């Protein structure tokens, strides 16, 4: 009748609470970015020339950002391998990979910040039509998420150095990895959309 498997379903949860919560959070994040990307597409479609003629001389730094994109993708791999190494109880490698990931994230943010300052110098500001506005809001929203992920990672690093994780106790690393990889995976989409539209 009520199958035995359904009994098991409630008791042997496939995902822990924390992991499930992070995945649910990502659903929400996706909708947030969908809203902003939707707005971007509306503006892009609504303007025949992009960037609009008033900012025709603006050129987004595609190559530097492409390099930056590469860095972020590498950080995704290092984060993933950090998780792998803690699962295999290789603590030293784990710590090195965590710090490497954090550094890559910080480098990404610094390059982004530097580019922004250059763009502002060249006259692309928040007020320069929807082109500048949606650029800063959309890319900035992602940057805030990277910053959040870095802060989360710093907490994980602190915990890692106080020996809070082991091969069978690393849910904190796992959740952080999920979030980090989400933020990394989101970036190429935004990069191609915003820089090449």
């Amino acid at each position: 009748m009520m199958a035995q498997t359904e009994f098991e379903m409630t008791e042997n949860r496939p995902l822990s609470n924390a992991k499930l919560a992070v995945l649910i959070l990502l659903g929400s994040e996706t909708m947030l970015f969908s809203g902003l990307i939707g707005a971007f597409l509306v503006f892009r479609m609504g303007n025949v020339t992009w960037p609009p003629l008033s900012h025709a001389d603006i050129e987004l730094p595609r190559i530097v950002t492409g390099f930056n994109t590469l860095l972020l993708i590498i950080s995704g791999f290092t984060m993933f391998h950090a998780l792998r190494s803690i699962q295999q109880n290789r603590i030293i490698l784990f710590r090195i990979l965590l710090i490497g990931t954090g550094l890559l994230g910080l480098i990404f943010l610094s390059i982004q910040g530097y580019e922004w300052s250059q763009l502002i110098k060249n006259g692309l500001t928040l007020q320069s039509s929807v082109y500048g506005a949606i650029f800063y809001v959309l890319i900035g929203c992602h940057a805030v998420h990277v910053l959040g992920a870095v802060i989360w990672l710093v907490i994980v690093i602190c915990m890692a150095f106080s020996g809070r994780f082991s091969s069978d106790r690393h849910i904190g690393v796992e959740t952080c990895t999920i979030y980090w990889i989400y933020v990394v995976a989101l970036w190429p989409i935004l990069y191609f959309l915003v820089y090449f539209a």
Partner: protein
Amino acid sequence: MQENENISHEHDDDEQHEHAHDDNDTPQHTHEHDDGQHEHEHHHEESFIRKYIFSLDHKMIGKQFLVYGLIMLFVGGGLALLFRWQLAYPGRPLPIIGASQQYIDEGEIVTSNDKRWDKIFESEKEELMETHFPNGVIEDKTYNMLFTMHATIMVFFVVVPILVGAFGNFLIPLMIGTRDMAFPILNMLSFWLAVLAAIVMAAGFFVPGGHAGAGWTGYAPLSVDPQWTDVGWGQNLWAISLLIQGFSSLVGSINYITTVINMRAPGMTFFRLPLVIWSLFIVAILLLLAFPVLSSALALLIFDRLAGTTFFTTTTEGGGDPLLWQHLFWFFGHPEVYILILPGMGIASELIAVNSRKPIFGYRSMVYAMIAIAFLGWIVWGHHMFQSGMRPGMGSFFMTTTMLIAVPSAIKTFNWLGTMFRGSIRFTTPMLHGIAFVSMFVIGGLSGIYMANTPVDIYIHDTYYIVAHIHYVVFGGSLFAMFGGIVFWYPKMYGRYMNDTLSKIHFWITFIAFNCTFFPMHILGVGGHMRRIANPQFYDFLQGFEGMNIFITMSAFTLGFAQLILVFNFFWSMKLGKVAEKNPWNVTTLEWEAPTPVPHGNFAQIPTVYRGPYEYSVPGEESDWIPQAQPEHAPASAGD
């Protein structure tokens, strides 16, 4: 988990348990309790602040949400009464706070109020009363603020906090058989973020320029540029408050979804969940996915207002798009209206099944209908924008998808009727509210079908017809379910009954006054009476509606004051109500297995679930109800 099977509805008077569950720090109770009628003693008393303010207990957080929602209900309702006065008697000073007509006409001081107004004008300070209600008369701009804030508060600060926040928190862990939410701290955070949002929202009333005045939908460019509404920081605070509210509901919905997926008692399969839990689960998913879209729109709006961007205004070149706001808002807004009604449907299902002493008719179809409604909610947002400018083809698409919603809604309605059909109905107060829910929901649903038709909508959009529709669904639907739910679960929340006479008086006055208030609005709407106008007497063709407007206002005041009965009853019964036994309504679901009042940690031992939630009047059984936790070789439940 099989050792925890000693819970039966006969309820041994001296259950004593060893606790195998020491994995959390909740104080467990191991002493005897006689039907839960005496005060429960904890191993260690929690401090006042831990227990009542920064509580981590889902039941206390639920009660906090309930009280918070009821307070906001009066704020929102009070705003409605103010503008109802203006609609019935445009330009006439408000009672109690207004000046006399002589003072306004000739400056002659007659009453003590006149003296006060005289002083206010003399002081020449920018007083709140003077700017919004000179002489006690509602200004046109104030009128905008009143209806905007009425809707904003009712939607975001009353219906969602009570139906989702209060009932969700209180019921989910109890009904799925667990000790608390998955993340108690996030749960507390969710409540206090909601309070913060309410404080920010309330602050908007006191800033120069008044509160937001662009309607609860905040249509651009009205909401963007102060030149249209004269609203300054009010609109900013409105947006910021809703952003905070977004975080609150994000945290809350993560908690709800995780709890329902991961924390169900042994044997509590998805298709043994009570319908109210299903509805809250679905609503949590909707909130999770819909609110961020509003957040993105609000963020853009704040940039427009504070940073000089032009997302929602058109400029000659490289400008934004006002329609984008409507798309983003309604992409959130339509799921939001299902967020408002689905928990009501769930609660009504409980009330009707319990009081009809019958299994809910078509349990699975009820679940699938809710899922279908939730899904369709995502692809119908355009029906709010038929008149905003849309390709006719798109209009047909949105019209069709909208009409499709009638199918799952009708399934639910017929199932409620089927549940009642030939049941041994007990006309308790919760049941009256349940029946009111179904009947009012039908009226509200049917008027919705008219507006879904693009050709009809051309004539009735932006009239009182839509006002009637939304109030039949949200007041007639959600609020009646909410009142019923409060009366129904009150014995479990506070260990006492609400006074039944008062509850019944409250119900009947509310029901009659509600219909007197909102039914005539259909007629106003078909007669062309626009919504959101401060002075109907300004228009020739609306002169004839003066009497009806006065009637509506009278009914609205009756409706408003009737709610005082509820609140009086609510607080009076907390201390002086009749003490309730453990399961006063003979309900099968798990929350009634817990002792009353429910201790921290809920269950002495986590119950094991053996059957579906609606085993009423099972043929061949002695009792007309079989609790979910009762073992035995009983026939399959309606849900299986």
